[in-house]
Structures are given as structure tokens and as C-alpha cells.
């Protein structure tokens, strides 16, 4: 039960943003799946918790599309883990995703911030 409370102030990811977030994470350097979950959690101020069930399908999909590449490496704690690295195509994809994301944010913001007309009441 305690666990659930911890997650209370976390939000669901908007559809289609996971790919973008993962690619962005990888721009900071090669990372393994667990590392990416931690990075997203920390850098979002403990708000974003990516589910493993979404993470790995997404990573494998990105790899199939050629946006990331993977290799097995040792972690600092001397464990074998699969590291993902963003490719040139992935970077291009990220910038276009980012552009669309920005558009989306602006569009949503424009609608949400507009005062209802003639609603003085």
C-alpha cells in the first residue's frame, strides 16, 4: 500500500513520447535499460516512472528501426548489461520528434490558456 502512495504524484506518459524520451536519455551517453529508467525518474523530479513492460518493447522497436544500437558491456559494478547507443538516424528522429513535441505543447498551451469569451460570470 505504501508503494502506491509513492506513485501517486507520478503521471502517465503521453502517448508516443516514450520513444522521444528514451532517445533523449541516450544523447547523454550510452545506457542500459535500468539506467534509463533511473535517469528519467531522477531528471523528471521523481515524476516519470517508465514501466519495464513498456521500456523493453520500445527499446527493441527503436533498435529495429535503426535509431539505437546495442552491445553487451560491463557495468561499473562489474555486471554484464546490454547498453544502448543512439545512432545518427536516431538523432535525426529525435530532433523531428522534438519539433513536433514543441508544436504540440504550444498548441495545447494556446488552447488551455485562452480565456473563455464572454464568460464574465
Amino acid at each position: 500500500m505504501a508503494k502506491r502512495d509513492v506513485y501517486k504524484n507520478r503521471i502517465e506518459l503521453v502517448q508516443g513520447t516514450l520513444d522521444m524520451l528514451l532517445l533523449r536519455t541516450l544523447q547523454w551517453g550510452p545506457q542500459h535499460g535500468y539506467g534509463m529508467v533511473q535517469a528519467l525518474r531522477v531528471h523528471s523530479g521523481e515524476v516519470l516512472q517508465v514501466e519495464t513492460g513498456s521500456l523493453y518493447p520500445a527499446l527493441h522497436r527503436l533498435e529495429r528501426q535503426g535509431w539505437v544500437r546495442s552491445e553487451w558491456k560491463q557495468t561499473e559494478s562489474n555486471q554484464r548489461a546490454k547498453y544502448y547507443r543512439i545512432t545518427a538516424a536516431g538523432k535525426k528522429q529525435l530532433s523531428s520528434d522534438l519539433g513536433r513535441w514543441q508544436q504540440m505543447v504550444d498548441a495545447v498551451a494556446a488552447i488551455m490558456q485562452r480565456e473563455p469569451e464572454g464568460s464574465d460570470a
Partner: protein
Amino acid sequence: MRLPWIRFAKQKDELNEELQAHLRMAMADRMERGESEDVARRNARREMGNIPLIEDVTREMWGGVWLERVLQDVRYALRQLRRAPGFAVTAMVTLSLGLAAAVAMYTVVDQVLLRPLPYRDAGSLVQITEMGKDGMPGWGNAFLDIAEWQARSHRLQGIAYYDVEGGPGHLNYLEGKDTSIGVSNATVSANLFATLGVQAAMGRTFLEGGNGAVRPEDAHTILLSDAIWRNAFAADPQILGRMVKVDGEAYTVIGVMPRGVAFPLTLAHPLVWVPMIPSSADKVRTRHETPHYETIARLASGASVAAAAHEMQEIQWDVAAQYTDQDNRDHISSIRVTRYEDTLVDDSVRKSLLALGGAAAVLWLIACVNVTSLLLARATARQREIAVRGALGASRGRIVQQLLIEGLMLSSAASLVGIVLATLTLRAFEHGLETQFGIHTVLAPNLRVLCVLLLLTVISALASSVWPALAVARAPIEPALRQGTAQSGTGRTQHRLRAALVVAEIAMSLTLLVACGLLLRTIYTMRHVPLGFRTDHVMVASMTIPSYRYANRDLYKDLYAPLLERVQHLPGVESASLMTDVPLGKDFRIVFSFGDGDGKTATDTRRSKIRAQARAVTPEIQKVFQFHMLKGRFFNDTDTATSLPVVVVNREFIREWEGEGSDPGKFLGTPLFGFRDKKQAVVVGVLDDDRQDGIAEPSQAEIEVCMPQITPGSTFYGPTSIAMSIAVRTERDPATVIPELRDVMRKASPELANSNFTTMEQVVEDSYGSQQLASRLLEIFGGTALVLCIAGIYGLLAYLVTQRTRELGIRIALGAQRVRLMAMVLRQAGGMLMAGLATGLLLAYATSRIVGTLLYGVKPHDPWTMAAVTLILLMGGLAAACIPARRAAGVDPMAALRSE
């Protein structure tokens, strides 16, 4: 199939390792934060979620999952089939029979009808033939006529011409430095190869002069076909410029044609081509003296055959006007333009092939229907298993896919067996197929045939398993799970569907059997046609010798007569004789026609139209074949080169010569035609009608002349130097005499050692023609159809009885009479049989015309055949129904009820 599987396995392991690493890292972090190992593991696991599910979802991303699923289904299908071997084997054998018939027939059709010709754009090649007013094609076209066409036709291009020395069956001898080989020798115009669109593989073709003829400087050059170059000259790269002899005449080799190129295509022997250079005889138009050529041309682009024919006819009016002789003019006044492809296959051959192909297709359909019925039954039996899979989450699509894959596995296995069966069938019918359809290549499934097989396999699988698969997948899951025992009702529609399939099967089988029955009657009738001569203990061989070696000698006196003398004295030989062609043989034929007489009376015209078969024979022929004499005498030893020339004619000849109803006896002593030195040949005997061309062909007018009377210079000497056969009547089994015969013949001339001996019975057998072949094939197709059909009836009834065991048990327990139960099952069988037979008779009535061309002495709608076949199927069907009927009557009520 192994490789992708290995790849998947490896990827799977890696994915698992990746997730485990994730789990370990999460645990380590938690333990660092102070959780105990147990708590850390539990929490990390919980946070992670369902690992197998994550794996599954992730694998979806790989894209190749469908393949993995297919492999899974294949393994599952194999397991299923292994678990029901009886079903698997029955279905496979059934399907393989159908596939084998279809593939075997398609192979033949492919070879005969769909053979790609070795020329560029062969579809636009046409053959041009001059015809008489009466529509009779002539012997060929005169050079001057061809030249006129070349000058004036716009719709035809590259009009080329050729002549095959001695006719298609004739053998010439090609001699190199140390080789001698039998060849076909075609005299061709220089533009022929350009018209065909083929070029020499080595060297060049003939130089072109005026009118497409060969330039005189190439007069003594020769082109070799690839086959000759390889067989006779061991593919010698230095062949160009070498000297070879054909029938004694010397030629220089100037080129070798590419592999597979032959023209004309109808020849049995490998080809050489020699140049056509117009002679003085070519510069006139006299029907009997001017040489004649076959003519081939290419349609100008955009021109149709009909348009070309129209244009040619216009030109031909003017051509005909240049013939001064009225009779000659009448013989060439019309013209026919035909696609070259279409001239290669006889219409009757095409029709009988298509009929047989159709029969094979019907058999294949029957097999598919049978397997569909089997699969339906099996799907019903497996309803529970499938319901369980559905309940566990398998989608309908997945279940259908799985069942389709099972069908595909079955039909793939069947196609493997089928191709073996097809090859065996082709091997078994090799002789018949090759003689009937003029196939000179090896009959074996080629790539195109394999493609068709693949297609048929897939269609078979789809046709037979889609329906059952959909039926099962659509069935609601819950009732099947709830009361899913063998006893549960499986829906009336499905039973009705299966009954309909069996009815269709009966109908199709009946159609096939009717065709088979009609051909059996045809063969029976043909076997009882009086041939007009004896065939037992007779052996014949056609002799081919390089006759040019005897150019200035009397062939008969120097070669044949001494040979005959020696053969007659061989032990075991009762009598022996020579003849230019064997009755019913297909190698050679002399057609004799008469001039127009002096007057232009109706009788003269009629007589000039007679096309008599002429045959030169020695007197002993009567002892060998024992032809039936009507009147007068046959030749004897008193008929010599110096005595009065005599001829023997047959009854049909007199009918045509004298008109209907004349007395053969009065015809004796009639002088018939000039034989030698103005001496007339006189009729001394009349033979009864006999069969010359084929059993199904009525007797034709025939003239026989006596060989000892023929000397160089007499009318018949020419033909006797082209072809000669020997016929031997033996006292014992003909085969035992062959070695000695060969020996004697080799001593007479070395080439004769290769003569092919056949018994006269085989010749007669071959002359039954396509009927014999068709009836044999249809016997097999019809027999298979009958078996499949009976199996289908049995299968359905047996299944129904098993399904109704409980109901039957209750009925018996309630006092139903066993006889009644039996009658109930038989009634069901009777219903299906009646419906099937009625449909089948209608079908047979509508389609039996297709085999019409093959029939002899029996009508396509012969009621007796239809009745007999119907009866056979009815008996067979009822017999098949008896077993399940008796089982229905024998149900033990206690056992049936207890088995619940």
C-alpha cells in the same frame, strides 16, 4: 527452416538475460538503500512486473514473429498428424493421386501444346499454303508464286521457303571423315533464318540472293544443327570449313546453329540445312514438274492473320491467272494463312489432350472434395481441443491459420508423393504418349510443371481446409467445452455439407467413368474391326540405306532381291517379302493420282481426284499377310521385268474408279496407267478392303504393283529407292529370329543392322492411336475416381453411424428393429447416390461430347454405357454403405448408453 529458428532462440536468451540484469541492478540499488536481500528481491520483482509477458510483447517488436508462429504451427500440425496416422495417410494418398494425375497430364500438355518455339516472337510466324478450289491443300508452293508474294505482300514479311528431302520421316546419311549418321536434310532459302529470328552460334548462315534464295557461291555449303555438331563431330571447334558429305554430295560447313534450334520442328532426326538455289525447273509453273516448297513468313507489325490471308488471296487471283493450264490453276487458286504454332499440333491431338487434361482435373477435384470431407470430419472430432485453445486465448485467425497450415502440410506431402507417381505414370505411358503426340524429348516434369504443381498444392490445401477451418473457428466455444463428447450434435449444416460433397464426388466420378466406358467400347469395337490381313507371327522392319550409293544401279536387283532370298532361307522363317510401306505403319506413304485423261468428262474429273495409296510389293507378301482376295489372282513368280506389267487394286479403288455398285469381276483386264515404255499396267486381281492408315480410318483406294517388274525408269522406281520395308512370317516366336535376321541384313549393307524390328501386333496396337492411350489413362483416372468415391460414401456413413451410436442404442433399447436401422443407413446412402447419379448423368450428357473425337463405333450419348456405369457406381456405393449399415444394426444398446 532451421536457421531463423536458431536466430530466434539466441535472441530469446539475450532478452531474458537483459531483463535479469535489469532485475539484479534494481535489487542492488534497493539493497544499497538498506533493504534486506529478500525484501529487495520481492520489491524489485513486483516493480518489474510479469517477465514472460514483457518478453512476449518485446518479441513482437522483432517483426519475425509470424514466422516463429508458423514454425510453431508446423510442429503442432506434425504432432497432430502423427497422432492420427490413419487420417493423415488417407488424406495424403487421396490428394497425391489427384495431384499425380493433374501433373502428369499437365506435363504432356506442356510438352505438346505449350512448348515454347525456339524462334524470336514465334507467335507472328505464319505458314502459307496454296489450296485447290475444293479446299484441298496442294503439295507446296512454286518458286515463282512465292516470288510474286514477296514482291507484293505488305502484311507479310520475310517470306521464306524450304523443302525436306524425302518427307519428314526420311533419313539421309551424313558422312564426315570417319562418321556416318542419319540426319534429316532440309533445303532452305537464305532468308529463312532471318525470318525465324535465329543466328548461327558459330560461323554464318547462307548468303542471300534474289527472292531470298541462296547465292550461287554458297551452293555447296551446309549448316549443322547443334545436335549433329555434338554427336557426329564431338563439338569440334575447328568444324568451319570442313568437308562433309550428305547422300554422297560434298558440302563445306559454314555454320553451326545454336542449341535447341530446329526447323521444321516435326522431324524426328537431327537436322542439317543445305541451300536452296533456284534451278531452271523453278522458272516455270507446271504443276507436276515444278518443285514445291513449304512457305513460312512473319506477320508485319500490326497485321492480323485474317488481314494477311485476305491480302494474300487478292494476290493469289493474279498468281493463278498466270497458270496457263486450267486444271493447274484450279489446284492453286485459293490460299491459306495459318499460324505456324497451330500447324504443329493436329486438331484431334489437341482435342484428345484437352479431354484427358480435363479428366485429370476432374480427378484432382474429386480428390480435393474427398479430403475436404475428411478434414470436416476431423475438425468435428477436434472441436473440443480447438475450443480449449480458444478458451485459452487463441484468436480465431490463429486457429484458422493453424488448420490451414495443417492442410498445407498434408498437401505438400501429397505433392511429393504425387510427383513420384506422375513420373512413374509418364514412364509407363512413354511409348504411347510419344507415338501419339509426336514428342521427341524426354517426358519429365520441368520447371514450369513444378510451378504448376506448387500452385495446385496450395490450391488443394486452401480448397480442402479453408471450409473446415472456418466452420470450426466460427463454432461457439462454450457449448463444445461444456458437453464436448463425441456424442454431441455437431450441427445439421455440417452433415448436409458433407453429404453435398459426397454427392458432388459421385457426380464427378460418374462423368469420368462414362468417358472411360465410352473409350473402352471404342477400343472393343476397334479390336473387332476386320483388318483385312493376318497379324500373328509377322514381324516388320523398315530399312533405311544410303540409296545414293545405288544411284546408277537397280536397287531391287542388286540389294533387295538377294537380301530377301537369304532371309527366306533362314531357319524359322516361313516366308518373307518386301514392301514399300507396312499396312498401318506410319513411316512412309506413296500417294498415287491420275492425270486428267483426254476428255473432260465427269468420269475423268472424278478419276483425277482419286488419291490412291500405292504400294510396291513382292509376290510373297500374300503368304505373309494373307490379304483377302476378292477376284482374280495376286502376283506370282511369272510376273517379271520382261512380262506384261500387272497391278492389283482393292475394292474401294474400283468403287471410286467405276462408281458405286460396279462388279469387281468385270474390272479384271482393265489397263490402268502407263507403267514402262508405253506399256500399260493391267489389273489382274482385286483385294478386299483393308486398313491402311489406322483402324478407325475406312479403307482407302489402293494400288499394288509387283516389285520384280519395277526397273529403273518405270513409274514406281523412285519411291522404292526412298523407302523399303521387309515383312517376315515366322514359324515360332518372332523375337527368336531377330538376331539371325539382323546378321543377314548387316551382311547386305552395314546400315541395315540398325533396322528396327517390330511385330505386326505392335504396329496394330500403335495404330489404335490416341484411343488406346486415352482409354488406358481414363481407366486409371476412372478407377481411382471410383475408389475415392466409394471411400467417400463409406467415410461419411461410418462417421454418421459413430456419431449416432447413442441415438441408435436408445432406439434399439426402445424396441426398434435392427433391420429398420440398417434400412435407415442404406436409405441415407441411397439418397446421396440417387442425387449424385442424377447430377452425374446430366453432367456426363453435357460433357461426353468432349471425348467425341476419340470415339469410334459408339455415340457420345450411348445409353448402354451410361446405364452400365450408373449401375456400377450404384452397386459400389451400396456395397460401401453396407458396412456402416450393419454396424448400425449391431449397436449394443447397453454399451452405447453406458459409454456416456
